[in-house]
């Protein structure tokens, strides 16, 4: 088989990541239960916490992004996903509107850090300093929805989106069929 034939035969690849999320959306992906066996017939998993592949090995057809952008690392990962994925999907409310982490958006970053590391009622920090190690990604001024950072092709709302919503969307994309989700499958909670 030539390299070209191999490429044609190869299954499309899918990548997933959790940015400023709680991994609940990934739990919902796993919630497709035994349909995951059908999914691996349709796709190969590239970079994803599900298989623990840390870096992209090539171009992907679909990227599923959970969580919004709360720090510079989130932005870098999201830009990397945009670069490697033909179709980028925001999965869940955090990716779509910032979600719970965005509750800090009405409070200044300095106030948040002061409360967490200096003034909080349960804070024990004898150094009196706010952590500032180069290893720790810097926080952004606020939490951004993914589509305010890169172009996002589709949005699957929900906290988390039901497994059926994710499944139906993926199958429609992978089999090139129109997606017509029933009323029950698009919810914001």
């Amino acid at each position: 088989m030539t390299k070209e034939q191999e490429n044609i035969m190869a299954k499309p690849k899918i990548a997933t990541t959790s940015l400023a999320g709680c991994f609940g959306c990934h739990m919902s992906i796993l919630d497709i239960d035994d349909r995951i066996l059908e999914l691996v017939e349709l796709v190969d998993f590239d970079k994803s916490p599900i298989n623990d592949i840390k870096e992209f090995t090539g171009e992907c057809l679909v990227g599923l992004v959970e969580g919004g952008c709360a720090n510079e690392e989130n932005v870098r990962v999201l830009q990397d996903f945009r670069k490697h994925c033909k179709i980028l999907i925001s999965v869940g409310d955090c990716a779509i509107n910032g979600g719970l982490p965005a509750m800090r958006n009405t409070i200044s970053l300095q106030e948040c850090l002061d409360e967490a590391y200096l003034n909080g009622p349960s804070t024990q920090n004898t150094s009196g300093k706010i952590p500032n190690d180069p290893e720790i990604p810097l926080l952004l001024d606020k939490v951004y929805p993914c589509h305010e950072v890169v172009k996002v092709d589709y949005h699957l709302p929900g906290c988390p989106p039901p497994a059926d919503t994710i499944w139906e969307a993926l199958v429609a994309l992978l089999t090139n069929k129109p997606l017509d989700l029933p009323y029950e499958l698009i919810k914001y909670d």
Partner: protein
Amino acid sequence: MSENTITFEIDGVEVQGTAGQTIMQAADVAGIYIPRLCAFDGLEPFGSCRVCTVKVNGRFQSACTQPIAEGIIVENDSEELLELRRNLVDMLFVEGNHFCMFCEKSGNCELQALAYRLGIAAPKYPYMFPADRNVDATHKDVFIDHNRCILCARCVRASRDLDGKNVFQFVGRGPQKRIAVNSRARLVDTDLNVTDKAVEVCPVGAILTKHVGYSIPVGKRKYDHTPIGADIEANKK
């Protein structure tokens, strides 16, 4: 047919109403749903949210305030109007702090249900995350969360016209416009009662009754399985 009967058309369908009715009232009876947020059965029309905007003989009008007239041609369910309504609902979402995932009203919220019905997966406008919205939880049975208020004035009208109390009114103008509590700053200082209509009519999670949060499980809430407006569409003959 009495001489008060008025015949007109909505999306090519002949509709009959009685003189004095608004387009929305006549449409409701005929089983045609016109989306709305500030309009509420039993309250004076207010015409502020513009979600019920229809085209009457080619001109934009709010269906909740515009009276019916013989022979008018009303356009309601067109892609142009749906897009306009989607934009309005989008703007309401990004203008406030609407966190559906933990809001007590989720599943029973008219703003959310309207977004579902209009097929909004994500707003097209950037989120504003306003920092100036407070929560007044001073009252023992009711709280008001300004983060979720969409300024529909249902509470203002219900308190004034149904409860006879004038607990709520608007203060400020433009982006500074807010719902405020009558004469004093705190809800506890008013004569608001938990049984007041003003508490019941809030379409979103801005005015909520305490001690009953999340009492209806997910799957059994008003809009979990039934789109908003389905009750009106059931009137269709």
